[in-house]
């Protein structure tokens, strides 16, 4: 009993109809516009004018005015009345006879006179196939003959068009198009009177209970079924809707979309056709007739007539919503879709969806609420405004009027239950996120984003940073105090940055790093700031905070410069300016120079020399301070590496500084850079006695040179090994090893001449066989190359002969293909295909043909 769909309003009171005559009862009624006809058991037709008006209290009421009453002259009750308003005729069934009377005068139609006798019941086809507006089609049940007749009633005559036999005696019928829906004595059936096809519906005992056959729409009927059911059946005999559950004693049924109204002994019940649920029950004793006329549901007891006035749809829906019957309200609204103009429906439907959403929101059914908000295209600010303080102060939003819900705000809704408040907030977060990702936030992005920011900050939500780091429309003025309140200083910095106030952002962050403000969002905030500065395009800001950053940690701080994009380093950000600036911070300076020289490979002598000098200083200071050997070693390796790899630094300068130190290896490298290989090798071999390094030296010094250079170096090394002036004989072993390992780098002939006589063949076997194999290989390779070149030459010769073709015969009897004259001399030109033509003809042709005109000769155009 969720809806109040109808109100019972008296229409014709007992006094007006029959006064105090106790035996008189109402038998039938007909309502046509404002005209109400009532047939009574004393064979009288009463004609009333029914005026509708609203009482001062706002209730609907009817006043009936008796226009006429007509006695039909019999002692029988009036059984049925049907108006044919287009014809101004009233069709009357009384005493088994159908007669036609004038609607106004209730007099029998003079010229018509046609009466149909032996009639049990009849019905009007409200959806006739024949489109003639000046006739009415009725279906008539014969009292005895198990037939149904179809008649056409015209203004002045009645004409039978069809007679249909039925398997049993029919007792009630309804018509739609060609379809007769009949209640027979033991079952219901559908009969197509045009084709004669029939369709049994279901069994029913008409003896036991009065059948009901009610057309409810195009080719669909409502039938009383066993067990007090109201069954729906289409003309095809299919049930498309679930049955409604009436009581066993149901007397009559009527339709007022979307409701099925039924009458039984004590009640009027209202079921929805949409969900088949019982919606309303009205107590009504002694009900006798229930019928609908053009949407108006009229109810009669034996003594008085009432109208069931439907309440406006929106009112019903609002009542349902007020009772929190969300689904029913929506079903009702959607069911009415067809009956309401589209744009009006959409507005209404949207509002109902929104209201439904808020009801479910209030019940914390967030999933359903969200769905309804989405479908109802809710202005998301309606929802945000429920949460205190979330909408920015600058927002122009005002809540919709009349209000969509009954809540003042979230606290009102939650009644102080903090857990509820939290759940609502979480819901809003997820909802706003979805709104942001669709275009639902159109026009109020600032409000949405600011609200979301506040929620995130309050809930300590990790997405706060994502929001601020991505494209957003958070209002700074409104968000800043909120973030401060929740100690989200880092986030506030991000917001400042997003709004172009990098200085303010950096100030905040510096304060956090220095511990003046408490915000543990990022433990690596210092690194973050450095990173930020390295990308910051505002040069003055970078300079402003560079001191702070590098002072804190030179190694990390220098990243401000080293991570900076190369094309950003202009103006006051040139490498020169930076190196100048970094003089104060030696560690940072080295790192920066390393970045320039090693990473970016800037080819500038200044930086290379600077770095080399710094490296050297470090090595020297380390070795003097007696630092751990490991550390000295590493520093030296760095220096050596730079000295080897780079060739831009000023060698002489470094050599000068290194001269008096123990750094022999470095000195060798420097000598090498000056092409003073003999000195270099001498240091390596005789001072350091490091033969592998000497070999390596030869290899990398000649790495990018030709074979001759390498040979020269190796011979030099061999020479140093074999140098008899230097004391210490163990160089011989090194020399042998060198020869045996690098046989390909020596000119064997030259070496043999150099070697002392006393060396055994065995000793030099690997070298010799290597050298021999090398020369043999070279020889054979050369032979193969020679052979291949010859073959190619031969092939080309063959091709040339082939393409030149056979001889071409020219004689005086042979004509030129172009001018058709004979040849007079032996000179000729061969066209492709070996056709001989005159030389002048060929020249002529070449001149005329634009394709073949030589492009080098553009003057030929004219």
């Amino acid at each position: 009993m969720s809806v109040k769909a109808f109100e019972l309003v008296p229409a014709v009171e007992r006094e007006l109809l029959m006064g105090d005559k106790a035996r008189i009862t109402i038998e039938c009624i007909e309502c046509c516009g404002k005209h109400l006809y009532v047939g009574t058991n004393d064979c009288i037709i009463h004609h009333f004018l029914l005026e509708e008006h609203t009482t001062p209290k706002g209730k609907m009421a009817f006043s009936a005015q008796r226009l006429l009453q007509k006695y039909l002259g019999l002692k029988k009750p009036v059984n049925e009345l049907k108006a044919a308003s287009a014809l101004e005729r009233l069709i009357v069934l009384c005493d088994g006879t159908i007669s036609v009377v004038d609607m106004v005068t209730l007099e029998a139609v003079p010229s018509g006179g046609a009466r149909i006798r032996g009639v049990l019941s009849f019905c009007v086809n409200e959806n006739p196939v024949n489109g003639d507006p000046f006739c009415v089609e009725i279906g008539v049940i014969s009292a005895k003959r198990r037939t149904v007749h179809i008649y056409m009633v015209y203004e002045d005559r009645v004409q039978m068009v069809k007679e249909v036999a039925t398997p049993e005696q029919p007792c009630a019928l309804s018509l739609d198009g060609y379809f007769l829906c009949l209640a027979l004595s033991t079952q219901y059936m559908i009969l197509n009177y045009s084709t004669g096809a029939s369709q049994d519906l279901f069994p029913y005992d008409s003896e036991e209970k009065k059948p009901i056959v009610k057309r409810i729409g195009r080719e669909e009927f409502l039938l009383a079924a066993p067990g007090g059911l109201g069954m729906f059946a289409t003309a095809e005999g299919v049930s498309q809707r679930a049955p409604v559950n009436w009581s066993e004693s149901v007397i009559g049924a009527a339709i007022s979309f979307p409701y099925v109204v039924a009458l039984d002994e004590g009640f009027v019940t209202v079921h929805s056709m949409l969900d088949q649920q019982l919606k309303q029950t009205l107590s009504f004793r002694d009900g006798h007739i229930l019928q609908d006329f053009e949407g108006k549901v009229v109810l009669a007891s034996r003594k008085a007539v009432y109208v069931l006035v439907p309440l406006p749809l929106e009112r019903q829906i609002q009542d349902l919503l007020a009772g929190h019957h969300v689904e029913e309200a929506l079903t009702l609204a959607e069911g009415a879709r067809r009956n309401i103009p589209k744009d009006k429906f959409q507005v209404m439907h949207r509002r109902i969806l929104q209201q439904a959403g808020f009801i479910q929101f209030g019940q914390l059914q967030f999933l359903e609420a969200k769905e309804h908000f989405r479908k109802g295209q809710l202005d998301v600010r309606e929802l945000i405004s429920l949460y205190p303080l979330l909408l920015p102060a600058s927002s122009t939003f005002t809540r919709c009027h009349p209000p969509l819900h009954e809540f003042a705000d979230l606290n009102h809704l939650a009644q102080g239950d903090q857990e509820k408040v939290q759940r609502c907030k979480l819901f809003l977060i997820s909802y706003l996120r979805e709104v942001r990702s669709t275009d639902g936030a159109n026009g109020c992005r600032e409000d949405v984003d600011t609200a979301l920011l506040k929620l995130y900050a309050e809930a300590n939500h990790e997405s706060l940073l994502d929001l601020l780091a991505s494209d957003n429309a958070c209002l700074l003025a409104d968000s800043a105090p909120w973030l401060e309140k929740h100690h989200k200083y880092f986030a506030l910095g991000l917001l400042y940055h997003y709004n172009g106030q990098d200085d303010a952002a950096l100030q905040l962050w510096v304060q956090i790093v220095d511990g003046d403000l408490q915000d543990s969002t990022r433990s690596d905030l210092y690194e973050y700031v450095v990173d930020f500065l390295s990308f910051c395009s505002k040069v003055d800001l970078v300079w402003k905070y560079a001191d702070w950053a590098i002072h804190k940690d030179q190694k990390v701080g220098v990243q401000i410069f080293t991570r900076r994009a190369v094309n950003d380093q202009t103006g006051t950000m040139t490498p020169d300016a930076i190196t100048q600036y970094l003089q104060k911070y030696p560690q940072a300076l080295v790192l920066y120079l390393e970045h320039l020289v090693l990473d970016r490979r800037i080819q500038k002598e200044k930086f290379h020399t600077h770095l080399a000098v710094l490296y050297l200083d470090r090595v020297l200071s380390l070795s003097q301070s007696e630092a751990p050997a490991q550390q000295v070693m590493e520093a030296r390796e760095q220096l050596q590496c730079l000295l080897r790899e780079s060739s831009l630094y000023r060698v002489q300068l470094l050599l000068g500084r290194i001269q008096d130190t123990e750094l022999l290896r470095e000195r060798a490298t420097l000598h090498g850079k000056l092409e003073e290989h003999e000195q270099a090798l001498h240091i390596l071999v005789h001072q350091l006695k490091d033969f592998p390094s000497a070999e390596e030296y030869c290899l990398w010094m000649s790495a990018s040179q030709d074979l001759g250079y390498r040979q020269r170096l190796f011979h030099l090394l061999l020479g140093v090994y074999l140098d008899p002036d230097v004391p210490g004989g163990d160089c011989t072993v090194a020399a042998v090893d060198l020869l045996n390992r690098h046989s390909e780098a020596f000119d064997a002939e030259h070496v043999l001449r150099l070697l002392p006589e006393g060396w055994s063949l065995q000793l030099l076997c690997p070298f010799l066989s290597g050298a021999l194999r090398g020369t043999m290989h070279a020889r054979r390779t050369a032979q193969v190359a020679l052979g291949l070149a010859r073959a190619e030459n031969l092939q080309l010769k063959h091709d040339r002969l082939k393409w030149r073709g056979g001889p071409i015969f020219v004689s005086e009897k042979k004509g030129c293909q172009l001018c058709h004259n004979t040849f007079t001399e032996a000179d000729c030109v061969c066209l492709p295909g070996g056709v001989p033509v005159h030389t002048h003809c060929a020249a002529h042709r070449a001149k005329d043909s634009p394709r073949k005109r030589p492009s080098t000769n553009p003057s030929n155009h004219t």
Partner: protein
Amino acid sequence: MPEYAKMKKPDVKLVILGDMNVGKTSLLHRYMERKFKETISTVGGAFFLKQWGPYNISIWDTAGREQFHGLGSMYCRGAAAIILTYDVTNWQSLVELEDRFLSLTDTANSDCIFAVVGNKADLTDPEAGLKEEEEEEEGEEEGGEGEKAERPARPPPTPPSPVARRKVHREDAIALYGRILRYKMLDERASLPAEKMCFETSAKTGYNVDLLFETLFDMVLPSILKKRSGNDSPTVDLEECRGAKRTKAGCCS
């Protein structure tokens, strides 16, 4: 009813038949609302729309009571699949399928599919007694409480130890399926095999319920397609018309 699809036109119809108190409504409830709850004796019939891919399938739940028997053939008219339901603890419920309900299916589509389903398997089969999904149970008793009064022969409420009174075996159901095919004068070899069309389910635990409905949905899809293509719809298809004309012209010339 969370369906907004109420107004949509169903593409195909599926009907559940069976004696009262075998659990037809509970089966449908379990499938549609994922829970087992107390149902009252169905009056007349009820239907649900199920969205299955792009199609709307209407599922009719019928009343098992004798009183509403006459309505059955109307529900079955035009049905593409019929689920004949019995109670595995009640031999008579299987007998009734053949005696009373089979004749109702005369109005169904000629290519209608039949499934024979033994419900309440949780009472006899320990495996079916296990919950398929962990959901809150609302009704402690088996379904069809409201019908209790009308049927004195109803077994007592669920005993703690099941595996008790199995009265109908799977072989009986398979045999019934064979007889249904014979009644429908269908070739057993050309029809769907009995092994595939006989189910044992439990609306209480959810055992086999999804399998039952989804197997049937997949099987009726061809019937939808046939209905769609075979419909001589009142809409004139201009493309089709043009095609037909062309071939005709080609034929005559």
